[in-house]
């Protein structure tokens, strides 16, 4: 256990926790986009910047990655912190002017117009890699990654093709902070739409009510990893018992 101060209040916390974890457990709000408690932190969006003072030295750090330490003094709202968050959101807004989430967040931070805008390719992805981390760490298939480098960096499947390992579960879409990934079930098909890749999955039909209820690949995957007989999924959850 270590003792630290956040915004003038004293806290005790386990050593391996990050500033962000301790703050949110105690109701102190720090804005984030790329953080999710289910996956490892990545430090991509830089919105969670806070000021820390340690041994008399002040620095700005990403709170989602910075571990707490004895005697650490954290301030989550200072003119510098707000300034840097504003700059970060200005850049994100310039990159993704179409994202309502980014727009709202920018508005809350006092930014209403992008400082500049990209001429083309205005989609909603901020490249935070939350989808790829969830696909890898939670789903366990690693169908998607960030590809290319620099200004060409994008989130995609290998060769921008249909992924043989994607199970169409939609977890990437649920977790996407800017709603850059979406899916829709139309008839017997799930259409998963990513910024640069679209994939289709066949849905399984419930043998009782006839409803198409989940991607076949996903059910096969669950059956395989959980060691359940695939027939267990012949009927949908609504028709069971």
């Amino acid at each position, binding site marked *: 256990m270590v003792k630290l101060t956040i915004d003038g209040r004293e806290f005790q916390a386990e050593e391996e926790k990050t500033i962000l974890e301790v703050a949110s457990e105690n109701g102190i709000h720090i804005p984030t986009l790329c953080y999710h408690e289910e996956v490892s932190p990545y430090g991509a969006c830089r919105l969670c910047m806070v000021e820390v003072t340690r041994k008399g030295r002040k620095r700005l750090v990403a709170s989602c990655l910075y571990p707490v330490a004895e005697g650490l003094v954290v301030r989550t709202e200072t003119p510098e912190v707000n300034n840097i968050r504003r700059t970060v959101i200005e850049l994100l807004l310039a990159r993704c002017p179409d994202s309502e989430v980014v727009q709202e967040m920018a508005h809350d931070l006092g930014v209403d117009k992008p400082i500049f805008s990209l001429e083309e390719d205005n989609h909603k992805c901020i490249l935070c890699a939350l989808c790829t981390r969830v696909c890898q760490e939670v789903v366990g298939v690693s169908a*998607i*990654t960030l590809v290319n480098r620099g200004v060409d960096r994008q989130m995609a499947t*290998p060769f921008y093709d249909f992924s043989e390992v994607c199970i169409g579960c939609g977890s990437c879409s649920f977790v996407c902070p800017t709603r850059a990934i979406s899916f829709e079930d139309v008839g017997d098909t799930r259409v998963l739409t990513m910024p640069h890749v679209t994939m289709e999955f066949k849905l399984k039909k419930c043998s009782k009510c006839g409803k198409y209820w989940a991607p076949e690949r996903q059910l096969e995957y669950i059956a395989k990893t959980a060691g359940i007989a695939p027939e267990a999924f012949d009927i949908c959850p609504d028709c069971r018992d």
Partner: protein
Amino acid sequence: MHAEAGQIAKKVGAILDKYQHDKGMLVSILQDIQEEYNYLPRESLEYVSKTLDVPFSQLYSIATFFKALRLTPRGRHLINVCLGTACHVRGAVKVLETIERELGVKSGGTTDGLEFTLETVNCVGACALGPVVIVDGDYHGQMKTEKVKDMIKQYS
């Protein structure tokens, strides 16, 4: 030039053996595969993914991250146009555009029949010669748009 399955298994298999199937050596493994094929055939990445149990997506991510790795075959002749500041102000962009038109490919591309690959570089340290075009390691200094045709002819 085209990579077929049995041959991949043998050649890439041998490379994997050399690195004792160590997942920490992916970049070196990919470099060796590229040495062998002059690029990274998709099938070779699939083979590495299956054999080492590394996500295919991770290999694609690495292959697209490093400039030294490529997923398309390179032509027999490599043309590098310097776009460093000195060459740039002396008209390197015009030279590049002329080469692009002459070959019918954009920078980064390879002509049909794998004859030429066209790339750009940011300064080769020969600013006094600018604009510089390097073909297969030969430096062509004081390049002019009018000289492009003859230069390409030397190599085709």
